């Protein structure tokens, strides 16, 4: 995941709403994330899932701002542009959401992608998320100020209309 961000070009980072000048060093970032990987589920601050297809790692999804048993924010990244618009992202994300909801016992899942990036916004709608609102914010330390769309899912509802994947 860290290698993906550091290896992405400026254009790809811009589409994610990320300012390359704000990326932490690999070492500093890893130092903070590794201890969290070992924490039991109810104590986790983040939860990362790698996506593999045909033996290759093709992306990841992660949850943060976790309130165990209540809510988390999720993110999705399909690393290989050639695999986009194939249905792979929706399939991986749908399975990630199922895992997040079950393992973290979530009642609400929130995703707030960069509004100017149509890919994740389209995917969220297909995954059954409900659009709530658009607003301007700086989503995190690595981001520039931007418009984001807030999407929400109540996991008790169907999480995907997978047959409509493009």
């Amino acid at each position, binding site marked *: 995941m860290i290698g993906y961000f550091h290896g992405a070009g400026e254009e790809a980072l811009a589409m994610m709403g990320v300012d390359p000048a*704000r990326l*932490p060093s690999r070492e*500093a*970032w890893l130092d*903070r*994330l590794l201890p*969290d990987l070992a924490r039991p589920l109810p104590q986790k*601050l*983040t939860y990362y899932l790698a996506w593999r297809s045909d033996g290759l790692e093709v992306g990841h999804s992660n949850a*943060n*701002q976790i*309130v165990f048993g*209540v*809510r988390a*924010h999720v993110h999705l990244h399909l690393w290989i542009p050639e695999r986009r618009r194939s249905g792979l992202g929706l399939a991986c994300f749908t399975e990630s959401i199922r895992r997040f909801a079950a393992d973290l016992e979530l009642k609400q899942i929130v995703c707030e992608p960069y509004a100017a990036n149509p890919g994740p916004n389209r995917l969220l709608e297909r995954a059954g998320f409900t659009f709530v*609102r658009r*607003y*301007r*914010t*700086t*989503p*995190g*330390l*690595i*981001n520039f*100020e931007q418009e984001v769309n807030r999407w929400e899912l109540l996991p008790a509802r169907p999480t995907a209309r997978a047959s409509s994947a493009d």
Partner: protein
Amino acid sequence: MTPHDTRTSRDDEAYRAFDFWIGDWTVTENGASAGTNRIVAELDGAVLSETWSGTSGVRGRSLSFYDRHRRRWHQTWIDSDGGVLHLDGGPVGRAMRLEGEGTEPGTLLPVEERITWTPNADGTVRQHWERKALGMQDWTTVFDGLYRRSADRAAPARD
């Protein structure tokens, strides 16, 4: 002066530096509703008690007080998502600025937190919450709220 000093704080000017925040407020960010907040002075004016109800569903409470032994203001905040802030500081001009350290929820990196409350001439208050990675230069805005006094409640007085 000892922790058991019973002198009233009511007339000490240092305790009044944050009085402009007292009241019942509706809060917006970029024109959109962010929530409501109620700030009440308690314990003969020794502490300000905050009760926040966010539009997103997050609720929060804080206690802010002037620590006369350290000669600094302090705020402890806790919200319904488990978020905690321990902030210290004091007046900067007419504003109140409180700072502390925390963890950024996305990267888990240690960060500096800074919240500045500024009273505006029209009676509104700006609450500007900023964050930056330790050792970095640039602050990023976490929350930039504008407080307007609620029309349906009179501002509570100090007790």
